[in-house]
């Protein structure tokens, strides 16, 4: 061993270690910008990941169809019955009609805001391994007009923000991440709050809203939208309230939000690349 420590090999290994330390420090200083060596490796590996994702999706769909065909047939029958029952309820209940009207209004918000500039549909090309906060990578980057911290949506609601940016792809952090805070508002009572999540709620696919006024009228089932900021445009659906509880200090309340988006199942997203009031 002593001979090894004095050998040329050992000196070469020390040099390699120093190089890797240097790269790591460079990456740390670069922050959210993807550094050149990483960009090269990702570019080389991306075709394999894209092909692997396609194979994985096809295999899981095929297996799912084969294994669960009977279950889906039964579920289909059951859903048909439920649908018939629901149609009856919709006709009978004015309340349901009013709620539907509210949903239609919210869904129309995007059309009303002509100032929103949307990206073309972005495909989810990879997921972060072992990420409890469901982060993922999309196939559009700065070349497509996307910038850091642009908000990301699906047709059913807010997903998160662009947290890392490259020319050809971007990494998205979801609203499950503690790093993403969103100002939100209940559509029914106009109660405002801020998402401030942690691992415990993220593990259940939920999101914690903090700083909710003690006097607010907010309850289970309330629809929550973005309240608007320099990062997130206003009135975009985030989810629904699952439960509300008082903070330990007794001054404010917390609400547990069930996001409208299932982060583990999305395949396509849209990025809002510009809107009035966005931080330049």
């Amino acid at each position: 061993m002593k001979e090894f420590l004095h050998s040329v090999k050992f000196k070469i290994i020390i040099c390699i270690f120093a190089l890797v330390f240097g790269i790591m420090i460079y990456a740390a200083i670069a922050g959210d910008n993807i550094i050149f060596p990483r960009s090269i490796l990702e570019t080389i590996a991306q075709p394999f990941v894209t092909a692997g994702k396609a194979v994985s999706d096809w295999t899981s769909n095929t297996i799912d169809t084969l294994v669960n065909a009977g279950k889906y047939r039964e579920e289909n029958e059951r859903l048909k019955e439920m649908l018939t029952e629901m149609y009856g309820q919709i006709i009978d209940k004015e309340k349901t009609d009013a709620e539907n009207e509210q949903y239609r209004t919210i869904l129309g918000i995007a059309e009303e805001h002509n100032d929103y500039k949307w990206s073309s549909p972005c495909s989810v090309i990879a997921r972060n391994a072992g990420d409890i906060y469901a982060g993922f990578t999309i196939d559009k980057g700065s070349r497509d007009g996307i910038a850091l911290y642009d908000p990301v949506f699906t047709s059913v609601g807010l997903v998160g923000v662009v947290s890392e940016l490259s020319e050809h792809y971007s990494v998205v952090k979801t609203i499950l991440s503690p790093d993403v805070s969103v100002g939100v508002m209940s559509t029914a009572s106009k109660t405002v709050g801020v998402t401030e999540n942690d691992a415990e709620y993220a593990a259940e696919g939920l999101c914690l809203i903090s700083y909710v006024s003690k006097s607010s009228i907010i309850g289970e089932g309330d629809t929550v939208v973005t309240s608007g900021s320099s990062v997130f445009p206003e009135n975009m659906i985030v989810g629904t309230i699952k439960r509300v509880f008082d903070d330990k200090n007794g001054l404010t309340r917390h609400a547990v939000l069930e996001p409208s988006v299932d982060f583990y199942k999305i395949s396509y997203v849209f990025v809002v690349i510009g809107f009035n009031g966005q931080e330049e």
Partner: protein
Amino acid sequence: MKYRLPLRDPLSRTEKRNRAVKWGIFILMMLLFYTLMRVGIFNRWQPYFIIPLTAAVAMFESEITACIFSMFGGFMTDIACGYLFGFSAVWLMTVGVLASLLVRNLIRVNIVNFMLISFAAVVAEFSMDYLFNVFIWNVKHSDVVIMMTILPSAISTVVVSPAVYYLVRMVERRLGEENVNVVNYTEPVTEEKSEEE
């Protein structure tokens, strides 16, 4: 008693071809394992396939080769897991170089020794992940992070390790040079020379 790099005979055309094919296979294996880590089919039980791959290759190769291969393995792990670029590379390089040194000086290449080295690599990687990405940031409910992601991934990585070892061993037996456990660093090269004379 002087440490010297062992002199080798020039490689024949077949040996050169075998070596190229072997490294082609190892690179493909790394890309395949990286892909498996990124498609998300294992959810929270995601094995970090690259860790046992670098450990296995390190056991069959020289220190510098092990160091470089572990460095790339670490970089790919960092990209797949969203860690700071170079973070895993440092730990995997350390384990790779130590594994190669151990095989050349102290232990033999077999499944038991491989599992011990692989386990050490898994412990190094995941404990450093917990320390630098969870603990020092005082992440709330860090126990949930351990139970829901770190521990399942560590267990599944150890479980898949033997399969990775046998794959690497198969490639090494068919295409590798039989140089493992034959290099002796304390070999008195100068004395041998004088004896030959």
